[in-house]
């Protein structure tokens, strides 16, 4: 089962994640993120807010696959995701990545639950279904969601600031225990941690015309 989890968390899985910076591009523009120390702070903040929310939703979606009415269960979680994602730009970014993951996940792990998802589901929902389809447990879905909440943004910072990739890898790896803790805490609930800063960065970013990243 571990291989499926590694596949899901692999940045090379072609699900479109590489075109999203998770707020990093705008945080750099706002000079909030300038070096490895501020990157670590940004990632920790992201992990404990949107990462925790994503982890809870992913675990719940993984569990929903066994529900007697999968369509209704996933639709309810999609609404829960909307409720936890007030910024329209972040909703769009999440649904865009969800669609990308459905495209590759549906081919990688054929399963009836894919058809039960909304057309452009929030990313954590697609992640939960992918985990279930790949034979993984809710805690694995939460782990993948928590990890992805920092790994993609870390790479974006590396590209945009031409940071030392070894330093960035170290920053991400040292967050490992916190990633595990966030995933473990989120697996049985639906955290609703909000971060107005991330919401604001996303909204400012979306009206820029000079951006490398979709979000």
């Amino acid at each position, binding site marked *: 089962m571990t291989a499926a989890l590694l596949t899901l968390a692999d940045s*090379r899985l072609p699900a479109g994640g*590489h*075109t999203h910076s998770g707020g990093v591009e705008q945080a750099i523009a706002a000079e909030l993120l300038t070096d490895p120390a501020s990157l670590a702070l940004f990632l920790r903040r992201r992990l404990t807010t949107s990462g925790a929310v994503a982890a809870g939703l992913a675990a719940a979606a993984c569990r929903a696959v066994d529900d007697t009415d999968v369509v209704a269960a996933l639709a309810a979680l999609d609404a829960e995701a909307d409720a936890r994602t007030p910024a329209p730009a972040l909703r769009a970014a999440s649904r865009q990545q969800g669609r990308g993951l459905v495209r590759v996940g549906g081919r990688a*792990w054929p399963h009836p639950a894919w058809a039960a998802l909304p057309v452009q589901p929030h990313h954590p929902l697609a992640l939960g279904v992918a985990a279930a389809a790949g034979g993984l447990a809710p805690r694995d879905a939460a782990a993948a969601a928590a990890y992805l909440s920092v790994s993609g943004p870390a790479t974006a910072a590396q590209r*945009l600031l031409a940071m030392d990739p070894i330093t960035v890898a170290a920053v991400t790896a040292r967050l490992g225990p916190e990633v595990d803790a966030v995933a473990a805490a989120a697996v049985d609930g639906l955290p609703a941690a909000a971060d107005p800063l991330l919401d604001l960065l996303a909204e400012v970013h979306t009206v820029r*015309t*000079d951006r490398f990243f*979709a979000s």
Partner: protein
Amino acid sequence: MPPDHNLDDYVDPYDPGHRHGGPLRVGLGGPVGSGKTALAAALCRTLGAEYDLAVVTNDIYTTEDADFLRRNAVLPDDRIEAVQTGCCPHTAIRDDITANLDAVELLESRHPGLELVLVESGGDNLTASFSYGLVDVQVFVVDVAGGDKVPRKGGPGVTASDLLVVNKTDLAPLVGADLGVMRRDADAVRGGKPTLLISLREDPAATEVAAWVRGEVRARALQSTS
């Protein structure tokens, strides 16, 4: 592992090679400044009246190319989609084509009769090429001003593209490039696949490239009905 996961499931009805119906997707790649956008604009002008067509642009940083196409009134806004490539234009057309597939599918759903989609890459280097999961055929555009050694240097764009276009032949005397050498070197590495030496300045209609595209559209139509 669920019981239905075995290799037999990998016969894929959505594999581009088996994609039935829908428009021909043509990738336009090549180094910065070689004339990809100018070629896309020329093809829109020449083929726009014949085919229901749309364009996806992959600018590195801005919406410059999409704006160019709009400004030149080559295509209405709703037929142009620009994608962000996350600082990595190469990845967006080859390794993770998700953003581009989204754009192509959006255009296809907006214009159900679409016959031709041009996917223009962000300017990249000689190793850039399109995944055949994204496009049906690809054109690689280099230019004479980059030096007549470019075809000899090879790279997947030069050697493996379905059509190699060497643009700006009008500049050859000015930069001391030998078109005969470029032709010969290209033929030597392309295994019989076509190469066109053109000047978009002298022929803004891109007549020969448009003719090649027409042939590919016809071939795809035949393939889809067979």
